[in-house]
């Protein structure tokens, strides 16, 4: 899951907030915000409508991932969809005061549904798969492609040297798992009991070290 405190972002780039104006809400977004902002008891129909919307978004996302979930029964998939929609509803209601109208309300709300569904789907797809951390896998890179693409093999030979000389063992593990073995970043975060942002920060730092090492190799 993404951490929400922003403490583990890769690099603080200057957001446009200082010059951004709060956009006037379009009529549909205004209706959503007004209805959901009513006191409890008066907003029940709007909340139910939002939940139905989020459930459709979740099912859309799970449908896109059906191939990766082919061993999941229809009943389990339906449970997963309802759970994801419930979690997305909680997130939307908690974050509603922060909605600024920079996007359509439905786009804003749907991203919570997509996130919840994606995370659950990736976790379920990897539930019975071992996440192998193979920090030495990079040593087999160049030989594997040498015959089919000599130029790529040459690049990989240089990268392999940089991996050996410029990365820590932990950075190698993360780089190999995510960039070579396609382990989803949030699955890896779960297994290592950390956050998705922290894993990406490690990946980002490893890549930066690789590029710096490669650049230092070509400097006169």
């Amino acid at each position, binding site marked *: 899951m*993404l*951490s*929400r*405190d*922003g403490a*583990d*972002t*890769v*690099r603080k*780039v*200057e*957001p*446009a907030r200082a*010059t*951004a*104006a709060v*956009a*006037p809400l*379009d009529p549909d977004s205004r209706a959503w915000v007004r209805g959901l902002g009513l006191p409890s008891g008066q907003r029940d129909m709007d909340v139910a409508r939002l939940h139905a*919307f989020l459930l*459709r*978004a979740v099912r*859309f*996302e799970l449908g*896109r991932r059906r191939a990766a979930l082919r061993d999941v029964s229809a009943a389990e998939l339906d449970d997963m969809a309802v759970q994801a929609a419930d979690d997305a509803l909680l997130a939307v209601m908690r974050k509603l005061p922060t909605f600024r*109208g*920079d*996007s*359509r309300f*439905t*786009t*804003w709300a*749907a*991203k919570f549904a*997509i*996130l919840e569904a*994606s995370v659950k789907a*990736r976790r379920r797809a990897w539930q019975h798969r071992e996440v192998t951390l193979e920090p030495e896998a*990079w040593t087999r890179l160049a030989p594997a492609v040498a015959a089919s693409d000599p130029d*790529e093999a040459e*690049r*990989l030979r240089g*990268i392999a040297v940089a*991996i050996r000389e410029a990365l820590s063992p932990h950075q190698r593990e993360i*780089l190999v798992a*995510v*960039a*070579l073995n396609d382990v*989803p*970043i949030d699955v890896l975060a779960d297994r290592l009991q950390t956050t*998705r*942002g922290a894993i*990406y920060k490690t*990946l*980002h730092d490893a*890549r*930066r070290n*690789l*590029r710096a090492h*490669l650049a230092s190799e070509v400097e006169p």
Partner: protein
Amino acid sequence: MNEPSTADRLLGPEPPELGCDECFEFLDRYVDAELGHEVALCAACVSPAECTRQRHCVGMRAHLQGCPACAEEHASLRALAEGGLR
């Protein structure tokens, strides 16, 4: 879009780059801007073309190149929004 080579996946995008948290925060506005929705108002960034001159949108683009999970979620939200959110 072509799959990046193994070398490109290892090296990732050039910085500056957003983190996953900022990517999630800006994702809805980014998608609406990509689709040209008029409500995606932002004084500093009103279209993908304009984004190329704004660091945080360049950072978003770089992050989507470097983070497979966020890229998947971006593709899904965009596909959903393109299809019409009801």
